[in-house]
């Protein structure tokens, strides 16, 4: 009997530190998993693009009559004359130094080119993500709350139709209707050609160019947030605590906003982070339609050559972004939902 309290005390004392260890181990495990993924991508990036058809040196020389010595010199310059394992070792060594190589087409460091194109892509995908999450969650919660209503059917139907439409087609239609037909927006690019003088006019100019590509991207992706929000809210709607809330005399709107939605948001967070990768992939198409000078367009152009160092660079940049988002989602979820922590 006398030993019992001791045991209880020991257990109580041990509890917080074990939980702390659990969290640290979880964080380490998540980060470790992320690092392993990045490592695999780096390896994959090397072999993946060497399977592509096309000879970079041939593209570089085009149909200018090239003499064999010149072609051999170009091959040597880019290390293409060396055996694949040796090229791989060089690649890993360069990668360790943060050197992504030199683009075949642009004859400039890949890191420099990618950094220049990162801004526009983050701008476009970031804006589209924020807007589509806001729009999707709001419409989704409304649709679920009045599920079966006309609003629900119209909102869900529209979202699913837009989700199924090819991005390319939708972008061109948006271009024809809003840019040409209604003359509201420019037909391509991120700024007016040559740029605009003054900071505020420049900001407005970019915003003006951003609307159509952003809308196209939002139209195509917001459905997934709507559907997740709708289904997770539907699950919550039968819960007893909502009856309690209503019994307290809360208005329907407040019941939904204060009680149901916060609980339904949890699974949505994961989805949001996990889909950042898909949004980036969508950028390839949207950037191509609207000539948006971002990473997606750069990847698309590099594929045609193929500009292997540039492709490796964009693959690694985009994949690292996706891995990073996944790690953040794992960590964030634990932070937000106490149940995950407890288990």
């Amino acid at each position, binding site marked *: 009997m006398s030993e019992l309290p001791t045991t209880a005390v020991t257990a109580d004392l041990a509890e917080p530190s074990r939980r702390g260890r659990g969290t640290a181990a979880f964080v380490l495990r998540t980060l470790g998993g992320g690092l392993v993924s990045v490592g695999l991508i780096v390896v994959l990036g090397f072999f993946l693009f060497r399977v592509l058809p096309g000879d970079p040196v041939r593209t570089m020389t085009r149909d*200018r009559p090239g*003499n064999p010595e010149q072609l051999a010199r170009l091959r040597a310059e880019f290390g293409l004359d060396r055996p694949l394992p040796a090229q791989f070792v060089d690649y890993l060594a360069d990668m360790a130094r943060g050197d992504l190589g030199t683009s075949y087409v642009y004859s400039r460091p890949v890191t420099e080119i990618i950094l220049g194109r990162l801004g526009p892509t983050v701008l476009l995908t970031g804006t589209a993500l924020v807007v589509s999450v806001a729009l999707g969650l709001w419409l989704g919660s409304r649709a679920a709350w009045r599920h079966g209503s006309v609003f629900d059917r119209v909102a869900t139907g529209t979202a699913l139709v837009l989700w199924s439409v090819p991005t390319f087609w939708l972008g061109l*239609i948006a271009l024809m209707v809003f840019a040409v037909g209604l003359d509201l927006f420019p037909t391509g690019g991120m700024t007016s050609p040559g740029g605009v003088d003054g900071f505020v006019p420049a900001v407005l100019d970019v915003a003006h160019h951003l609307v159509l590509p952003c809308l196209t991207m939002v139209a195509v992706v917001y459905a997934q947030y709507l559907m997740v929000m709708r289904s997770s809210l539907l699950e919550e709607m039968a819960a007893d605590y909502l009856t309690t809330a209503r019994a307290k005399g809360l208005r329907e709107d407040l019941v939904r906003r204060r009680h149901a939605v916060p609980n339904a948001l949890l699974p949505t967070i994961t989805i949001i982070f996990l889909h950042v990768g898909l949004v980036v992939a969508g950028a390839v198409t949207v950037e191509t339609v609207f000539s948006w000078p971002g990473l997606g367009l750069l990847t698309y152009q590099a594929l045609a050559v193929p500009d292997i160092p540039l492709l490796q660079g964009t693959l690694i940049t985009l994949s690292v972004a996706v891995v990073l988002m996944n790690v953040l989602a794992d960590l964030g979820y634990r932070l937000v939902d106490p149940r995950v922590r407890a288990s």
Partner: protein
Amino acid sequence: MRRVSFGTCAGAALLAATIAAGGPGVAHAQPPPGGTTLRVALTQDIDSLNPFVAVFLSSTQVMRLTYENLTMVGPDNAVQPGLAESWESSPDGLTWTFRIRDAQWSDGTPITARDVAFTYTQLMTNPAAQDANGSAVTNFAAVTAIDDRTVAITTKQPQASILATDIPIVPEHVWSSRVAQIGTATGAEELPVVGSGPYIVTGHQEGQSVTLSANNRFWRGRPLLDSLQFVRYENVDAAVQGLLKGDVDLVRDLTPAQFDSLDGNPAIGRNEGRNRRYTELLLNWSHPSGVDGQPFGDGHPALRDVRVRKALHHAVDAGAVVERVKQGYSEPGYGIIPPVYPDWTFTPSDGQRRGHDPARARALLDEAGYRPGPDGVRTGPDGRPLTLRLIAGNQVPTNPQLLEFLAGWFTAIGVGVTPQIMSSNQVDDATVAGNFDIAVSGWSVNPDPDATLGQQTCAANGTSESDSGYCNPAYDQLHATQQAAIDETERREIVRRMQSMLYDDVHAIVLTHDAMLEAYRADRFTGFVTQPEDGGVITGQTGYWGYYGARPVAADQAAAGSGGGAAGVVAGVLAAVVVLGGGAFLVARNRRRSRDERE
């Protein structure tokens, strides 16, 4: 809540735009206020503005505007003075002496023979400078500035094509300090660029636009426009929309459907330009001829027999290709030199010409010993069925249709066909390695025929220049003779004989010379000089004539030309939506790459 979400959209866009506007890549290079600016849609990226590195067609266009050559070809495709006002060759044809005109770089420094010697010497001696144009000077032994006005080029072998050397001359006083970075410089480090052409690069937004301003010191006289802007449109459909809206003034590389859709629009001028390209069917020769005496590739052995090749040619109806595949925007071809170069082009004699004649084709195959089998496919003397792989790249929108026609024609004479559309890179890989039977291919041809003719020599096989894998020592002999034939009449006759030889041997089936379809804002600009002047192209010339001749339409005329009802616009949009709905995806992939964008 509704307000919030739209507000979020606008707010987020604005906030994000604020960040972007402050970021790199937005150079503020505006055209002079109130000036006239011609905006040209670029459907290909600018790889570099460094004349020693730039190879894309888009970039070489800009280079031709910025840097004058020693000599160049005019709108009539004949050699004209450039920086050299006159020239003469030594009796042995090995030394050419050029007299440099009294002109200035755009910064006011005189242009001298030393600039020419510097440029050529860099190309000849500095490996880093050779990426773009190094191969053009491989036959040069020395280039020396005799005095400020005179430069002498000594060649190792006589070189008849020397006056067509298309190399931008750069200012020594700018580039001598950049020699260490000659292979890596972007060419836009210091703006404005110092050049000698009609327009000078004054602004560059990477991946978006290049701005050029009129060069007041251009030796032919200042151009009539204040500036030119090349604006990036990755997608030709979007560029056509930009043209309709007025965001751009000139678009090239339209498909027949896009071109036809602009018909009847009073604001838009259309130009069906006779181009310097040819489309051909490669017939794989590689197997018998080989590279360096070694057989290579896996071509069907039947293709070694000239009767089989002739039969395939007789099966093809070039007229139907022009009318039904190319929608009439094309002309049938016979030789590899396009008719826009009348001095060099080849037309077979009446007895020599092979027309569309399936009966003759069948007879030839019978004669060669290919008997019809039970399934309609002929079988050779060796028992192997005469089934050929037929490949084409997906970069040309009409290729799938072309393959259907070809398959039909070949099947009709008892030749089995397995058609396949693939990426242009895959087609290139297959043709260079000789792993194909029949391939749809094509090249752009320069004003001087030497390079194109050289692609049919044995030495080209297995290289990136590889065409059909043709190898004929008699042809190679003629090729060497024309290279050294300084007398033009004599050279023309040799070139004619070479093409006649190719035709008789059926080195390939030259199908068509396709037009370049261009459209521009006729309500704003006029005076585009085409090359050739008679029905040629505005963009993609070997020279700057298209842009140099352009001038704004007078203001009163412009007002008369514009204006279409709103109802018309709406109807147009609806019609376009319907059309696009069907074909957006196909058209989306119809981007021209690789061989089609080759210079």
